[in-house]
């Protein structure tokens, strides 16, 4: 699965994209796996209320199911316009 990071999440983690092998059932499970990897992941995901997630390019919530999903993205609240 591709995992993407944007804005300060990308900066804190240090790269914009990575391939992740996971059996995580939900976004929340995936976040726990990532946090266990390294401090920079742990720091980036410390406050989930400051983060948004998209699953296959659609906004989702942290309980979203990951079965069949190819792309998950993490980012702060959007500031377009």
């Amino acid at each position: 699965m591709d995992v993407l990071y944007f804005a300060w999440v990308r900066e804190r983690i240090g790269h914009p994209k990575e391939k992740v092998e996971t059996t995580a059932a939900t976004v929340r499970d995936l976040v726990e796996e990532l946090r266990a990897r390294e401090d920079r992941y742990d720091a980036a995901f410390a406050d989930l209320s400051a983060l948004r997630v998209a699953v296959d390019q659609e906004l989702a919530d942290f309980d979203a199911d990951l079965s069949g999903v190819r792309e998950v993205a993490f980012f702060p609240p959007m500031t377009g316009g």
Partner: protein
Amino acid sequence: MVVRVQAEGFDAGGELNRFTAACDGAGAVVSFTGIVRNRAGAPLREMMIEHYPGMTEKAIAGIEAEAVDRWSLGRSLVIHRYGALAPGETIMMVATAARHRADAFQAAEFLMDYLKSRAPFWKKEIGRDGAEWVAARDEDEAALGRW
């Protein structure tokens, strides 16, 4: 429904004229242009806009489809830039055309409210003494509540 996500600058007036010329039967055209403001105090060197290629176009198309569904719209246009912008440059523009002005105004405001908080763009302000991600404003999130 036209959506353009691009790094290049664009001519808002020229876009407005082309949009209006293509709107057969519309009596009302509303446009919104967003401009990089300078900051009081610490001058802004540039604004960097990051986006999520692929999701951006899909999200905007979804927002436009909802606007068409809710109001009696002739056409709509969304142009949004990414990359480095200088103060005074045009970040983005929305235009809507309808027979009557209420539809054109409401659809344009709706598009703007959703683009602000639901299209995957992030702004970073780069000044002389450092850079800072622009925080989402509570009132922008609250603005969605009215639709």
